[in-house]
């Protein structure tokens, strides 16, 4: 496996635009009140098409990507965690949560100025930390809060009663939004936002599916900067349009055989959030010719997938393309709930075997040689069941390694030791360091 390849490669043309959209997102949130707009906060899994029904001047701050951005700034991240811990929060809590709380506590916004407090909290609840996270923020900022319980079991067991349970809460959510802001909910804006979200999340899955080819047109380190837009504002027009553009560009790279990494020799996948301040580990892998072509996390934290007619995994088809009309509130809420409940990354909360099956599917379809599992001490939710996944993957005969770390708290990541483990895994895969 050590013969060196030399595929053509070139930078992604849309890289700069992705960066600019991300910066604009945070600026929009910070400046929302300048023109009478509203700010709200919740997780990247919040069903953000609902607040979009309040108007075009309503902007969100999603907690996880905000904390991940801070994690890149090691000094500020440490200050935030120290601040959260100094008021008594335990060090083994979600590191994103501690970082976000610390930013509130210090009253400092990563992108400059004081922390822009939200006008309300709008949040989903599937991860054990999610509600407590924003309950504390709501208490600190003295703002109203709404939580949507989506823990209704795996999608393949979804029935009318479970769908009703979530849909009815969405109706309640609209009532909450109107009461807490004094604004009238606009169904037309809401339906447009739902369609945008469906476009964004299905198209992102299509983009990831393009990585099945060899050489991979995208590497996971690059994908982190692209999938993040869906974690910021998946129901926005700009996000949906960007993914359409990106799909065209990646398709073109595939057609021309453009590789993300010119010496791609071996393909791996990772799992869960990476240790954000040590993304150079991905470049280290490349010194062996190993490329991470993605993960269930990168593909499906936001991507919505379904079986394609040929049996492969690809983006879920859009309801209106299947002749489903999306005109009235209740129908759209129901479709919206169903769409989100099919999110692959939610399924493992109910049974780790579902995640193992999806990971093995990725291994087969994306031509993967090995799996690297991050035992992420910073995220109980996504780390739940990883050792079960490890057993299942190993049992299927797929080389797998695990390493301990933390997505946001660098104190729990031992770079030297992880490098040594990576070296051993590369040797297990029959790889040797390649000269630059």
């Amino acid at each position: 496996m050590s013969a060196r390849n030399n595929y053509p490669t070139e930078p992604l043309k849309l890289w700069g635009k992705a960066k600019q959209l991300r910066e604009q997102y945070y600026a929009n949130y910070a400046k929302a009140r300048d023109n009478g707009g509203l700010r709200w906060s919740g997780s990247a899994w919040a069903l953000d098409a609902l607040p979009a029904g309040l108007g075009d001047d309503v902007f969100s701050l999603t907690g996880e990507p905000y904390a991940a951005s801070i994690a890149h700034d090691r000094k500020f991240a440490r200050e935030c965690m120290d601040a959260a811990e100094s008021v008594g929060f335990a060090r083994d809590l979600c590191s994103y949560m501690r970082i976000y709380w610390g930013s509130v506590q210090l009253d400092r916004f990563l992108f400059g100025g004081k922390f822009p407090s939200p006008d309300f909290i709008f949040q989903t609840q599937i991860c054990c930390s999610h509600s407590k996270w924003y309950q504390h923020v709501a208490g600190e900022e003295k703002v109203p809060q709404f939580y949507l319980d989506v823990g209704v079991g795996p999608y393949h067991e979804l029935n009318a009663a479970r769908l009703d349970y979530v849909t009815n809460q969405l109706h309640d959510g609209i009532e909450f939004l109107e009461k807490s802001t004094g604004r009238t909910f606009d169904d037309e804006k809401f339906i447009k936002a739902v369609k945008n979200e469906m476009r964004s999340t299905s198209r992102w899955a299509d983009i990831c599916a393009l990585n099945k080819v060899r050489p991979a047109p995208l590497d996971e380190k690059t994908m982190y900067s692209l999938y993040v837009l869906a974690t910021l504002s998946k129901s926005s027009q700009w996000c949906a349009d960007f993914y359409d553009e990106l799909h065209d560009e990646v398709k073109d790279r595939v057609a021309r055989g453009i590789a993300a990494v010119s010496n791609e020799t071996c393909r791996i996948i990772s799992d869960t959030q990476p240790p954000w301040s040590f993304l150079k580990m991905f470049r280290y892998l490349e010194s062996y010719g190993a490329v991470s072509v993605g993960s269930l996390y990168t593909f499906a934290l936001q991507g919505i997938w379904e079986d394609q007619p040929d049996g492969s995994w690809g983006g879920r088809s859009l309801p209106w393309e299947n002749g489903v009309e999306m005109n009235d509130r209740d129908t759209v809420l129901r479709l919206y709930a169903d769409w989100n409940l099919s999110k692959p990354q939610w399924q493992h909360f109910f049974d780790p075997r579902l995640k193992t099956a999806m990971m093995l599917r990725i291994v087969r379809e994306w031509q993967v040689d090995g799996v690297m599992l991050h035992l992420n001490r910073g995220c109980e939710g996504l780390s739940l069941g990883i050792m079960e996944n490890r057993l299942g993957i190993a049992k299927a005969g797929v080389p797998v390694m695990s390493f301990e770390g933390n997505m946001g708290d660098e104190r729990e990541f031992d770079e030297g030791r992880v490098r040594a483990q990576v070296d051993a895994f590369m040797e297990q895969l029959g790889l040797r360091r390649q000269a630059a």
Partner: protein
Amino acid sequence: MITAGIDMGMRSVKVLLLEKVGAGDTAASKYGIRQLHIMLPGELDQDQAADQAYDEALAAAGLQREDVTAVFATGAGRKQVGFAAEGITEMTAGARGAVYLCPQARTVVDVGAEEGRGMKTDATGRVVDFASNEKCAAGVGSFAEAMARALQMTLREFGEAALKSDRSIPMNAQCAVFAESEVVSLIHSGTPKNDIARAVLDAVASRICAMVRRVGIESEVALIGGMARNAGFVQSLKAAMGVDTISLTDMPEHVGALGCALLAAERRC
């Protein structure tokens, strides 16, 4: 043809010189061990330590550097061995060396001063799966050593004391700091030293066993690394793993260096 393996461990430098002795199908029939050497670096820096240990090994074998076809290095300080042609991870080197010495070994447990690891291997000594301890000292030799000091025993006495105990005292197997405070409590409560020694080694074995179970325990099990010399630990590990026998070698600290020398012979000769 002679190759060398150097294991730059946390505490000591191990050197092994390997000589081609035949043309059989197996590594054991092709290669023989020419010289073993172990050196405690003392105040030397790692670069100097590697040079000195290597030269001492060559001198003991009556050889010059030019007599050696290739040198491979392993261990935490392998990158400091500037004259090594390749660096090999401890997992790959340990498994290769262990299967050379114990051909039926399919699970190799390596417990050194600062690291513990478990490797599943095939019949050629190639690693199929592995697990290693993370940022924790609870499953390694330095912890046992510190506890032996607390009881004012040598590590050898500590292991022998554990064998004399017929009492199992559960201890914290997850954290060396908590375990140490438990040892202090046991001393103050007048618990016999033999029982404390066993409790400590049981805890280390439990930690190591939990890690090795990640890759699965397949017979035979071989134990390498400095802790293989501790009879009390071997007893505790057998009990924790639920196996009747653990294959041991009379050169447990040199197995990684042996693996390196074997790989050097295969790749460079």
